[in-house]
Structure formats: structure tokens, C-alpha cells
């Protein structure tokens, strides 16, 4: 609500630009047709291209400037308003940023009150802390403030409002002008010989390049943000302990053992169990579906398998917690009362529980990738083998699988990197105890779950106990990135084999 005036004019502005854009399209197209005296063959490009070009010129610079403006204006306003807040106004235990957010809330609150009719625009401008209780006034319009409004805050808020209003007007004027100038230039350029098609082509290229570089830049950005926090961590905590220690026991006294090894062990152990489940089952399912199943079975079974892939992992986690874990306890635990009569397992959370369920989660992943890869083995390979008198299973074992093997290995590595990054199943299935042990019936924990628990606590953000999450995250990132790179390299090499 408080945002109503902030957004609406901008939305309106965008709509105006879009209308101008549509207008530009038709005007330029008509102009091109007129320039060719109605005969499209005399034009350099198809008439629509002139339209597209004009639309581009009208919309893109304007929207681009608008985006930058919306980003920069609040920063400028903030900077100039902050200087109005005297150091004295920042009370003990608070910070300039907290005061600033009060200022913003008061400013937006006043605007809301004006919109709601509780205040006139003039009254809002002239309001003062001396004769009005602003806090209760704003509360009536639904804006809750944490503390009484001081004169400084109000002053700053008023400045904030006026600058925002001015900015709004400037922005509207500037954007409309840019849009119109673009339109004008495009119309001037629209002649029969103008190469509109080439321009549109170049625009498409730029668009695709921007999309590609955004994807890459985000990755780089993620890496850097993790890297900086990790460097912070290592300046507070010895790296020897992190990489080489054997204990994970964060505490608040400042002498925590923060070693990745027990977590890495848990991660790898669970992932291995998951792969032991997923790879054979997924691979056999893929072989059945791609080699033996007739089209009717495939039409039903493939989508069914892929539905498994769409189940959110938290649901698998619940399955681990409620079904698989208790079943394993029945099987391996409870002494005389258990199924096997042994007492090896005490709690439902264990490496085995998480590994089994994660394996089930990965089955469709492995099977659908392997299925694609097996299908990519040319039929002529199979024919060649059948033609030599090989049976179906000999053909699969000796020709199809070896031919598909690099791709299947790639699929397995991709599955492994998913297993390593999986969180929810581990939280619910594996427990929270960091230890290095070979017993799969014991609870353990993984890197991902520790990241979550380190960041969701109440601890100070600058303590090593919190920052370790970034070092863990970075290690995880490097690990999965490495696996993915190897996997993609193998898969690509295999693709080339039949070209």
C-alpha cells in the first residue's frame, strides 16, 4: 500500500512507452510502405522489419534508462537524506541504517495517509512533531512505527518525500523524451533503402548475447560472494583445522572445532549409498524402457518415472523420516522385537535411511539420462550385432552399453553431484551428528545440512561459526563443479563419437 505511488507512476510510464512502441511499429511500417509507394518489393527489408526497428528504437533505450534510473535514484536520495541525520539522533544500540529505515517508513506512511484521505497533501507537507502525534496518525492509516517520530526523522522524511516527488517527475519527463527521440530517429531513418532487417538481426544477436553473459556473470558473482565470505572465515579460523581437523563441534565460546572432514565423509558416504541404489536400478530401467519395452509400455512408464523426478525433495525427506527410517529400525534394531532380532540401530535417522531414499530420488534422473544416451546409440550398431547372430542381451551387453558407457558415466557423475548437493532428505533422514564412522546404521550429517544450521541460528553474522557456512558452501561448489565438468566433458566426447 505504501508503495502505491511509488509503483503506479512507473507502471504507467512503462505502459506509455509500450503504447509509443506499438505506435512506432505501425507508423514506421506505414511510412516504409508509403516510401515504396505501396510496393513492398521495392523495400530493402520486409515492411515489418521497419516496424520492428522503430519499436526497438522507441522501447529499448527508454526502458534501459528507466531501469538504471529506478536503481540509482533511491541511492542518491538516501545519500543526500542521510546527511540530514545528525550523529546525535542515532541512539545507542541503533545505527544510521535503522534510522534511515524509520525515515523511509515515515515518508511512505505520509504518502499512504494522503492516498487514504486521512491527510491533505498540504497538511502532509506542513506537518510537524510539535503539534501532531504522527505515530498514532500513521497508525490510523495502517502504518505501524516502532518508536515516536523525532523532529530530525520527520525532517529527513519530508526531504525524502520531496526528492522522491521531484525524481518521479524528472524520470517521467526524461523517459518520455528518450522514447520520443528514439521514435523520431527511427522514423527519419525509415526509407526504402534503409537496412532495417540487418539492424533487427543485430538486435537479436545482442539479446542472445546478453542472456548468455547474464548466466555466466551470475555464476561468477556467486563464486565471488562466497569467496569473500570464505576469506573472512579463514582470517578468523585456521585453515588447517577446517581442512585437516577431524571434529565438528561449533560452540559459542569461540573455540569451536570446525572441520569439514566429518561432514565431507557423511556427504560422500550417503552419496555412495544413494548411487549404489540409483545406478543399477536406473540403468536397468533405462535398458528395459529403451531396448525391450514396446511403445505402449514406454508411453506409460516413462512419464511415470519422470513424475518421480518432479517430487519435491522434502517429500522424499518425509518418506525417509516416516517410512524408511522406522522400517530400518524394525529390521536392524529393537533387539528381540525386531525382524532380524539384532540391535544394531537405535534411531530412525541413519546414513542408510538417507542414502536409500536419496537413491530412490535419483532413479528417474539416472534412468532418463541413460535412456536418452542408449537411444542415441545408432540402430545400425544393433543391426550389425544381430546380423552376426548375437542375442538381444548379448547385443546390449557387448555393443550398446559399451557404446553408451561414457555417456552413462557422465550421467552417473551428474547424479553424484546432485546427491552431494541434496539437503532436505539428509536433514530428515540422516540426523545431525557429525562423525567419521563406517557404520551405515549410525546417524551422520552432511555439508549441506550444516550450512543450513550454521546460518539459521541466532549467532553473530561475523563469527567463524556462521562464516564457516560460506567456506563449506564454496567447497561444495568446487566439488560439484568439478564433477559436473568431468561429466560434461565425458558426455560431450561421447556425443562426437557418432558424428
Amino acid at each position, binding site marked *: 500500500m505504501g508503495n502505491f505511488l511509488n509503483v503506479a507512476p512507473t507502471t504507467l510510464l512503462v505502459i506509455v512507452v509500450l503504447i509509443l512502441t506499438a505506435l512506432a511499429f505501425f507508423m514506421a511500417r506505414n511510412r516504409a510502405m508509403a516510401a515504396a509507394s505501396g510496393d513492398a518489393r521495392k523495400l530493402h527489408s520486409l515492411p515489418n522489419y521497419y516496424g520492428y526497428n522503430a519499436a526497438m528504437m522507441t522501447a529499448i533505450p527508454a526502458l534501459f534508462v528507466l531501469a538504471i534510473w529506478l536503481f540509482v535514484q533511491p541511492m542518491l536520495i538516501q545519500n543526500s537524506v542521510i546527511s540530514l541525520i545528525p550523529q546525535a539522533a542515532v541512539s545507542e544500540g541503533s545505527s544510521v541504517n535503522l534510522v534511515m529505515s524509520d525515515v523511509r517508513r515515515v515518508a511512505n506512511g505520509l504518502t499512504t495517509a494522503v492516498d487514504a484521505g486521512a491527510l491533505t497533501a498540504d497538511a502532509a507537507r506542513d506537518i510537524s512533531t510539535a503539534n501532531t502525534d504522527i505515530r498514532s496518525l500513521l497508525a490510523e492509516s495502517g502504518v505501524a512505527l516502532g518508536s515516536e517520530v523525532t523532529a530530525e526523522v520527520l525532517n529527513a522524511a519530508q526531504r525524502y518525500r520531496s526528492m522522491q516527488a521531484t525524481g518521479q517527475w524528472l524520470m517521467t519527463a526524461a523517459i518520455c523524451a528518450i522514447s520520443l527521440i528514439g521514435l523520431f530517429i527511427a522514423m527519419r531513418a525509415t526509407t526504402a533503402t534503409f537496412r532495417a532487417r540487418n539492424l533487427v538481426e543485430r538486435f537479436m544477436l545482442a539479446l542472445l548475447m546478453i542472456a548468455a553473459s547474464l548466466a555466466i556473470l551470475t555464476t561468477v558473482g556467486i563464486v565471488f560472494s562466497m569467496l569473500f565470505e570464505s576469506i573472512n572465515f579463514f582470517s578468523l579460523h585456521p585453515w588447517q583445522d577446517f581442512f585437516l581437523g577431524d571434529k565438528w563441534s561449533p560452540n559459542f565460546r569461540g573455540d569451536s572445532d570446525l572441520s569439514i572432514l566429518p561432514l565431507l565423509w557423511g556427504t560422500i558416504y550417503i552419496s555412495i549409498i544413494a548411487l549404489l541404489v540409483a545406478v543399477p536400478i536406473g540403468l536397468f530401467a533405462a535398458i528395459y524402457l529403451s531396448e525391450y519395452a514396446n511403445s505402449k509400455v514406454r508411453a506409460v512408464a516413462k512419464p511415470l518415472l519422470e513424475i518421480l523426478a518432479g517430487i519435491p525433495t522434502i517429500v522424499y525427506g518425509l518418506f525417509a523420516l516416516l517410512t524408511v527410517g522406522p522400517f530400518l529400525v524394525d529390521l536392524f534394531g529393537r533387539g528381540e522385537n525386531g525382524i532380524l532380532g539384532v540391535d544394531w540401530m537405535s534411531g530412525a535417522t541413519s546414513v542408510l535411511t538417507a542414502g536409500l531414499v536419496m537413491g530412490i530420488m535419483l532413479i528417474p534422473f539416472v534412468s532418463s539420462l541413460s535412456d536418452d544416451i542408449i537411444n542415441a546409440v545408432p540402430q*545400425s550398431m544393433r543391426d550389425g550385432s544381430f*546380423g552376426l547372430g548375437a542375442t538381444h542381451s548379448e547385443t546390449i551387453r557387448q555393443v550398446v552399453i559399451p557404446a553408451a558407457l561414457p555417456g552413462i558415466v557422465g550421467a552417473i557423475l551428474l547424479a553424484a553431484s546432485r546427491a552431494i548437493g541434496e539437503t532436505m532428505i539428509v536433514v530428515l533422514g540422516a540426523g545431525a551428528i557429525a562423525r567419521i564412522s563406517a557404520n551405515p546404521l549410525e546417524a551422520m550429517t552432511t555439508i549441506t545440512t550444516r550450512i543450513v544450521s550454521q546460518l539459521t541460528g541466532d549467532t553473530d553474522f561475523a563469527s567463524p561459526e556462521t562464516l564457516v557456512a560460506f567456506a563449506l558452501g564454496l567447497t561444495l561448489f568446487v566439488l560439484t563443479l568439478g564433477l559436473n565438468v568431468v561429466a560434461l566433458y565425458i558426455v560431450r566426447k561421447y556425443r562426437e563419437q557418432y558424428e
Partner: protein
Amino acid sequence: MKDNVISEMDVTTDKIKISANNVQVYYGENQAIKDVSVEIQDKTVTAFIGPSGCGKSTFLRCINRMNDTIDICRVQGDIMIDGEDIYDSNVDPVQLRAKVGMVFQKPNPFPKSIYDNVAYGPRIHGLSRNKAELDDIVERALKRAAIWNEVKDRLNAPGTGLSGGQQQRLCIARAIATEPEVLLMDEPCSALDPIATAQVEELIDELRQNYAVVIVTHSMQQAARVSQKTAFFHLGNLVEYGETDKIFTAPEDPRTESYITGRIG
């Protein structure tokens, strides 16, 4: 049109290897082979010619029951090899295919080493008792396929790394390594350049001494060069079958004549 005169003399004495009677083949509802009867002689190269889509490949694939691998394909009538009905329920198509080798249109070496490609069939059928015997089989097959000299130094290199013509001769070596009695070739030269084609054709002529060779080709010159008998197929029918010379010089059926003079294509 015919240049190898010697081959004609030993043709007539050979016995019938394959005899097909009233063969019909359907792909679902669509009939691809209509009532074809033909007798193919041993130690002879028999060419199947005809316009594209007339059913040459389909008929060829009946002879080693490769059509069994296509779900919608049905074969009626009977085909005998050495007097034995290959569609009899006692016959295992897998064993039949060891006896009736096949070379495909596109060279399809397995992504294995040259050696393993050739050893594939003998290993599956247990034709050798030890490594030395297997080496021997591989060497003989490669020699008979006239590729031994080119590959003897790199038997462990992948078969897929050879040139197209070499790959096709490797596939021929792979087919003859199982000691088949009949060799089926479906347009074996269509993916090859003229020089490789000449090498393979020469090879086919050599192979005739040991096998009954059936070759599908779309090139009439090739049929004339390598075969002693020619069968002309048209729209699923066997139109004319006889001595290659006669088919090309004095065809009886007007359709055959139109085809070889280039009027049906």
C-alpha cells in the same frame, strides 16, 4: 557389358542354396513383398536391382530373419536354405544369422578395436578354443576381406577410426569371421567413393568362391560387374530373374527394359 568371362563358366554347375516360395512381407497393413519365389545358387553372386522402395532390402532381410527385429513386420511363405525351412519354429534366428552373414548399407563397425570387431562373432559363437585360434580367425578374416595389410599394425586401434571404404571391408571381415555360408550385402558400396567401391567389388568377386553372395545394389553397372544372376524387383514383385547378361542385354519383361534403359527410376 560383362567383363569377367571366366565367372560364367562355373555358374551353371552350382546347386541351389536358397529357395524362396511365395514369400509375402507386410509392414503392418502395407504389403512390401508380393508373392516372390526365387532360387539362389551357391557360389554365385546374385544381384537384386530395382527402383528405390521396391522391397529389395526387405526381401534380403527375410533371408537372415532380420525382419524379426521389426515389430510390425510379418513374413509369409517359406524360405529354405539347403532344404531347411528357416522360418520353421525349430530354427533359432540367432543361429541362423551366424550362418547367414550380413553387410549393411552404411559401414557400422562397433566402437571397439579392429581386432574386437572381427572377433565379435567368433567369441559369441565360441568358435575358438584359445587366444591363438582367435588370432588366427581374425587374421584370416581380415586377409579374406583384403584389409589385412592396411590394419595389421594397428589391430588395437578403434574400428571407427578407419576410412569409409576400410570400415566397410572391416564389416565384411567381421561378417565372414563367423564362417557363414551365405553373405547378404545391402548396397554395400553406396556410402563409398569409387576407389573403395572398386576394392569392395573385387572382394565380392573373390568371396564368391566360398559363399553364396546376395547383393542389393541401386547401380546397374555394379550389378553387371559383380553378379552372375540378377533379380529385378518392382513395387514388391519379382519381375524378372535370370543370368545377369541376359537381363541386361535381352530382358523379357518391358518393365525390366524400361528400368535398365533408365525409364523407371
